[in-house]
């Protein structure tokens, strides 16, 4: 029994992974740093740090607040820009068998389209459309919170994206199912969720918000129950596969997301406390599969009784 090899491969509707464990955008850089702690070949896919058309130096001031079993970040998409990514990072990542997901971020719809266009001709495996960044035209609310804007951005980007397209949803919405349906209708291949919850912290000694931009993105175990509910709701609603994330920190969390219907998982914040957490979770999933007699991970996905 113990020697029987388990089938761990999953298919995110065109993006096949040799196992369902991926890492979340912005928490793993471009893989370089973590490659000194774990074997990147063990990771199904790496979603790289959120890319923008031009290099960005990110937000000033404090960028992190630790909160009870979570953290707020306000990195502000610091990244070398899509061209440097293509030149410097793709070749590095291609040394490993992990798939490359390019997380793309625009200031406006045109930028999203342009990035999709550019990356469609490059050696990446999937594009992850991050629609949680603030939309300046819509008064700073994220692209991903307004159903009409979601419809427009996904349909336009779809036309430029000649690759597997993931759309990553913001959890800061009343009805995640409605947004997910639109994303599916407009032709996304896969839905990723959740991005960070909007949160805030105040420095009571200075009597100021800790973060210059007042609010930041909450991630980590604290948000797991919210993420799991949204992943479950979306998996019940759409037919395209779901890449589930939000607070996954150990095997039990991962199994919960798989049972809730996520076809693959992304680990984010948990990497910070434990750089080997992805490998440990993969191991734990295998043990669980043996105990509960699944020989193919696909039997486990969505297998709620």
């Amino acid at each position: 029994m113990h020697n029987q090899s388990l089938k761990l491969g999953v298919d995110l509707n065109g993006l096949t992974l040799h196992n369902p464990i991926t890492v979340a955008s912005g928490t793993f850089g471009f893989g370089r740093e973590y490659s000194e702690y774990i074997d990147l070949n063990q990771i199904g896919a790496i979603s790289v740090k959120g890319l923008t058309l031009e290099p960005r130096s990110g937000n000033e001031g404090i960028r992190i607040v630790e909160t009870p079993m979570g953290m707020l970040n306000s990195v502000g998409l610091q990244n070398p820009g899509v061209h440097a990514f293509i030149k410097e990072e793709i070749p590095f990542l291609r040394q490993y068998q992990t798939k490359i997901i390019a997380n793309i971020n625009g200031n406006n719809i045109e930028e999203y389209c342009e990035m999709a266009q550019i990356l469609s001709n490059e050696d990446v495996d999937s594009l992850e459309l991050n629609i949680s960044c603030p939309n300046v035209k819509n008064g700073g609310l994220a692209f991903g919170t307004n159903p009409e804007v979601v419809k427009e951005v996904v349909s336009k980007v779809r036309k430029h994206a000649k690759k597997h397209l993931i759309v990553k949803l913001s959890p800061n919405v009343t009805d995640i199912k409605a947004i997910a349906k639109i994303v599916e209708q407009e032709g996304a291949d896969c839905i990723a969720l959740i991005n960070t919850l909007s949160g805030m912290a105040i420095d009571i000694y200075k009597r100021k918000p800790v973060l210059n931009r007042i609010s930041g993105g909450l991630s980590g175990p604290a948000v797991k129950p919210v993420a799991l509910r949204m992943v479950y709701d979306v998996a019940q609603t759409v037919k395209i596969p779901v890449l589930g994330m939000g607070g996954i920190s150990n095997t039990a969390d991962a199994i919960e997301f798989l049972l809730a219907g996520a076809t693959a998982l992304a680990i984010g914040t948990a990497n910070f406390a434990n750089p080997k957490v992805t490998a440990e979770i993969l191991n734990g999933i295998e043990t669980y599969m043996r105990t509960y007699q699944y020989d193919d991970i696909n039997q486990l996905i969505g297998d709620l009784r």
Partner: protein
Amino acid sequence: MKFQGLVRIISKKEINDEVFTLCVERPKAIESIKAGQFFNIKTSAYGSPMLRRPISVSGYDKDSIEFTIKVIGDGTKQLHQYEVDEKIDIMGPLGNGFEYSNEQEILVIGGGIGIAPVKGLLEVLKRENPNIKVTTILGFKDEPYLEETFNALSDTLKIVSETDSRYEKGFVTEPLKSIIWKPFQMTYACGPTPMLKAITPVLNAAKMPVQLLMEEKMACGIGACLVCTCKIKEGDFGYKHQRMCKDGPMFYGSEVIFDA
């Protein structure tokens, strides 16, 4: 592969009510350590606080690594509860540490718990070059600690305190200004940001190179998450964000922009 894992605590020593040292077994996998580097330490096996805590190396040899820690919140409180022979999860060494070769005369400035990595530095420098001339300035808010240790490591030692009347009153900038004419080849400094911010222009103006060991709240500690930044001059008017954990925590005084 870099080291992350459990190491045994060899010894623990209380320095005063708030400060203590933990000495741990140095894992074989760690080939080199540099003064000024740090380890990111998991304080609790039970998840809270969630993030590791960066702690500088305050000394090391081929078998052990020493940390000198000040209790300020839950994470450091938890570190304080570890006992000899228990195991603790450390990750590192991280960051770029101090740069040193064979300086003959140096100045060292430490503030508060920032004296910890400076102690580690002096131990190494003395080991490698017993004739090095060391002038040390230490500043404390309250009662100084590790005075004897620094006495042994320094040729000249000045200690100031904001409140302890047995010592010169004030900040490290005062004694610094009075000796800045000396021909130090290098200054090494670690302490709270306001201290580093205060000494840097003084040293820059005197055209004296200074290595600042800086601090910023961290998450990954290895350069992947970009939550820790240091604003570094670029060109004449520009700046770039470097990673405190990976590109630092040591930066030269000439390159850092101190905001706010």
